[in-house]
Structure formats: C-alpha cells, structure tokens
C-alpha cells in the first residue's frame, strides 16, 4: 500500500487526514468512536481569548448535500482550553492543530503567544473569517490588507515566543473575488501554509415562518455542496503558489473526495461536516484514500499532490516511473 506520510510546513504527519475546525469539538467525543491519535491531527474548534456563549438558536438548517450553521464560535476561551482540552488532547497522544479566532489583530497575536511555545500544539490555524471589530465588522479574510495584518502579527508573536514555533496556517474564506490574491498576501506576511476553505456565507428562509431559519440570520454553508468550490480554490492557489503547503477541506465525505483535493494540490485534508453524519468518517476516508491511491498506481501520497496540474504526457510518464 502507498506511503501516506506527509507534511504541513515543518510539521510531519503520519497520514494526511485531519478533522476540520468546528466539526470535531476538542476531540473527546470522536475518541469514543476511534483513537484520535491515529489521525494525521485533530483540528480544534476555533478558540478565542474569552469564553463565548455563541449565538441564539436555531443554529442549523440542513440544505441539499450540506448544512448552514450559525454557531457563533461558542467556546470556553483560551485559559480553560489550555488547562482542560489541550491537556487532554496531549494525554491521549493526539497531534493537535489549534484553530484561533479573534475580532482584533492584537488578539490574534496574544492567542499565538499563548500557544506557540506550548509543546502540545503541533500547528496553529488562524481562522481569519471573523468580523474585524475595529473595521465595522469587515471580515479579515475578505480584505487582503486586513489578512496581512493578522498574519504579520501572528508571525511576529510566534517568532518572539519560540525559536521553533509550530507552523502558522491561515484559513481563508472562499467569499472573495480572487482567492490567490489573499493567499499571496498571507504567504508574504509569514503564513507557513493555507487552510482552504472556510464555509460559504448563505441564507435559508423558513417558508412556514417566512423569516430567516437561523437565529444569526446568515450562516456558513458546508458539506458536499461546496466541494467543487473548495477544489477550485485549492487548484488556483496551488497553481499560483506551488511551494506553499495547503490543507484542503470542504465537503469531503469519501476517499475519492479527498483524492480530488490532493490531486488539486493539497498536502493533507480535513474531514469536516461528514463527521456529523458519520462519526467514523475520518478513519474511513483515510482507508478509502489509501486504497484509491493504490488503485491508481501511486506508491506515495507525495507523488499525487498537485498531480492534476501536470499535462497528460507528464502524468503518464510519472505513473510509469513509479510502477
């Protein structure tokens, strides 16, 4: 069977399957179904400085091949997270990618300082799809300059905190005109890689009440419905910045779905919304991906990363060489 090890920046992983932020809590619940230390890594729900209640219900509406959510980043805050959740993740041997979120540039820096020197943190995923409270709620990830400022601040904080800080990835929103422009800004501001993609902004109207279905009015669309958008984003960014590692996500439900992201240029993938319907989805996707790589003659996952960008002749000769 093919070699599945991979890397995200300096972080080496035994396999390319991670959970997705907001779809696996802090790991405890899924650990009832499989050993989360067997994952490439657990990606936590986004953590902020202070505890957050989240938004009022209803928080979810099922949509065709997807769902719309408006949770509002409910969470315990960084202190409780480090003391209870991160400690537990370390105790079971899980590699942990900590997702951080904030409404101010300085808060992203502070969160990075709290985490960058912590030995249980394998990587920091900077969720910049948050409203900037200092700029009338404009989402950081939708503004190249705001994205840059967050990543510069996080980079500086990480480098000041540790001589060997964990990789910093920026998680981008697909709700932009040109995702490669934001990707470039993040890379130039010190991001070690990118997580692609966050949810798409959506709205569902309840035709009984004739009002928005969610308490938060709009919500984030996830699930297989957004997969082609996500694969397109991975493709475009990999083409524009081929050396930049990509963690791909958006509607992955099977090994073949994961393979699409890898072929488009992702070094690893996150299984997100599929977990809500199948708590065993991450390990199932891993097994399926392994079988699909093998069926296509790949001896290593690394050979498949970005493979779809090659022309037909190059694809044929590489497969022959590895056979």
């Amino acid at each position, binding site marked *: 069977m093919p070699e599945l090890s991979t890397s995200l920046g300096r972080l080496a992983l035994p396999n390319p399957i991670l959970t997705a932020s*907001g*779809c*696996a*809590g802090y790991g*405890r*619940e*899924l650990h*009832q*179904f499989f050993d989360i230390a067997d994952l490439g890594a657990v990606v936590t*729900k986004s953590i*902020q400085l*202070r*505890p*957050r*209640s*989240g*938004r*009022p*219900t*209803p*928080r*979810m509406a*099922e949509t*065709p*091949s*997807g*769902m719309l*959510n408006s*949770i*509002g*980043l*409910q*969470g315990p*805050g960084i202190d409780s997270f480090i003391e209870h959740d991160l400690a537990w993740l370390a105790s079971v041997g899980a590699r942990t990618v900590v997702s951080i979120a904030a*409404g101010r540039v300085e808060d992203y820096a502070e969160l990075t300082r709290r985490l960058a020197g912590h030995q249980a943190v394998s990587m920091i995923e900077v969720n910049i799809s*948050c*409203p900037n*409270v200092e700029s009338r*709620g404009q989402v950081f990830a939708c503004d190249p300059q705001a994205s840059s400022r967050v990543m510069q601040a996080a980079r500086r904080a990480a480098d000041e905190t540790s001589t060997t800080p964990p990789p910093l990835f920026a998680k981008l929103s697909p709700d932009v005109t040109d995702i490669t422009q934001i990707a470039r800004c993040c890379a130039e501001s010190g991001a070690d890689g990118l997580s692609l993609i966050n949810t798409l902004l959506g709205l569902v109207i309840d035709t009984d009440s004739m009002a928005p279905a969610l*308490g938060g009015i709009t919500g984030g669309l996830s*699930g*297989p419905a957004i997969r082609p958008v996500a694969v397109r984003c991975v493709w475009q960014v990999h083409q524009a910045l081929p050396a930049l590692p990509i963690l791909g996500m958006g509607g992955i*439900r099977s090994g073949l779905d994961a393979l699409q992201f890898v072929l488009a240029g992702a070094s690893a993938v996150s299984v997100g*919304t*599929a*977990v*809500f*319907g*199948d*708590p*065993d989805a991450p390990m199932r996707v891993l097994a399926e991906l392994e079988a699909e790589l093998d069926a296509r003659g790949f001896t290593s996952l690394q050979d498949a990363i970005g493979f779809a960008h090659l022309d037909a002749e190059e694809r044929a000769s590489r497969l022959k060489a590895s056979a």
Partner: protein
Amino acid sequence: MTKPVHETAEIFAVRKVGAYTEFTVVAPGLTAGFRPGHFVAVAVGGENTAMILRRAFALYGANQNEGYAGTIQFVVASNGPGTQWLVQRQVGERLDLVGPLGTPFTLPAPGTGAVLVGGGYGAAPLLPLAQALLTQDSPVEIVLGAANTDRLFGELAAKRLVGQVTVTTDDGSAGTKGWVTDELPAALDRVGAASTAASASGARARLYACGPMGMLRAVGDLAAARGITAQVAVEEAMACGIGVCMTCVLPVRGTDGASRFVRSCVDGPVFDASAIRWADVGTLPPDLVGADAMGGH
C-alpha cells in the same frame, strides 16, 4: 456514561401505529448500555444521499434477548423528507445507527411515586422508564396527551404496564378534551398517596415528561409550584447527536448558578426542568456565560 456505538442494523419489524411508525431493529451493540431516555441517531436517504445529517429518535425499548441478538425500538413521525424516507423502509433492510446517545433519566429513591407525561410520540421513552420505576416498587401514573387519537402513542402498552392511563386530546377524540397539565394534580396526589418512600426533599412524587417544548415548560411550571422535581426530555434540532456540532443548545442554569448554552444531545436530552430557562430559549440572554464576548459578531 454509556459509550455509543456505530452499527449497521437489520430491520426486524415495522409497525404503523396511528400517525407513527414503530421500528424494531437488530442492534445488539446498542442494547448493552441502554437506559430510559437514551436516543438513537439514524442515517437517512441511503448511500450518497443529499440528506447528510442523522435523525434522532428516543429509544422506546432495548431488549437483550437471551439466545438472540438484542433489538432496539424507536418511533418515527413522518414530517420531512428524511423521516418520509425512513418510514418507507421494510423488514430486512438495513439502517445505519449511532447510539445509545444522551444523558438518560435518573430514578428517584425506590418506592417514590412518579407521574409520567407524554405528548404525542414523546410517550416512547417513558414506557421503558415506567418499567424501571415499577421494578423498584415506585407507584407510577401515566398521562398521555396528543392533538388527536391518531397522534396518541403508547396507550395500550402503558395500560399493560400500569393498569390505568389518563388520556387527553386537544380535540376530544380520545380521553378528556384538554391539556395533560389539567390531569397532573390529581395524578400526583394519587401516586403521592401510594408512595412508600419520601425523597430527600420530602416530596412524595416526581414528574417525568417528554414531548413538545410548550408541554415540557408547563410541566416544569407545575413541578415548581408544587416543589417537586420534574425531569424532562427535550426534542431540539440536532446535526450530529454526539456533542461536536453545538447546534442543539439550550440556555441552562448550572449548579454553580451561572447559565450557559449546553448541548441537548450530550448534557440532555433529559434535564431537570427547573434548570432550563424556558423563557429565554431562542434568545441570547445577556447574563449567559460568554454573552459579553458576542459583540461585533
């Protein structure tokens, strides 16, 4: 806490009961840790369906049959594309199940009386609860309510268990026309008189309820007025059922006095009615832990 399992399970029996469909499924892994109040999350739509989320149903029973594979039972009301798909399944087909899930009911001191109140198919989890209460010599009264006869569930099974059942319907098509809460004071007095034990608080009866939120709130109000405990099983919309998605939250007062949004799938579905802030469901009360951090987004 019972560890849930993920099991592909064969349908053993399907029975139409009024407006509902009752499933019996061969799922030995789910029977092991079953307690009344647990629920099961069922995948709908088949492989590669566009309906990506499970549907949650209170467990109506779980039998670890000697010499046979264990079975579970649950009751489905068809009210959307997912449940419409489910009620068309037939004996021999297989279902993808996760369970048992949630925090179940707790039992009072043996001998303490209990009144069980079921709204519609909310009666389902109360029947195994009645059985557990009877086993510990607690006198049990069952009050069932529904919009009409068709939407009533469990009357015969309840009668077999406890002898007498009080029924109310909104339209008077079965039992007394009116609300379940109209019948509760008399039922509580009857089980209180029959109780052989008093709880630590001195109360001689406990209320249990499952059904629509309005009914649960009314039961909680009545319990508060009488100074007794009511345990209610809520039916909140869920995405995952296992505690990761945070969609099914309710504003609940904790033992520390602080209120938080808590998950009905893991911390519930059974709650002490007095802990739920009924008037604040669907809102963001400003005193909730972390509500102050919500400004801006």
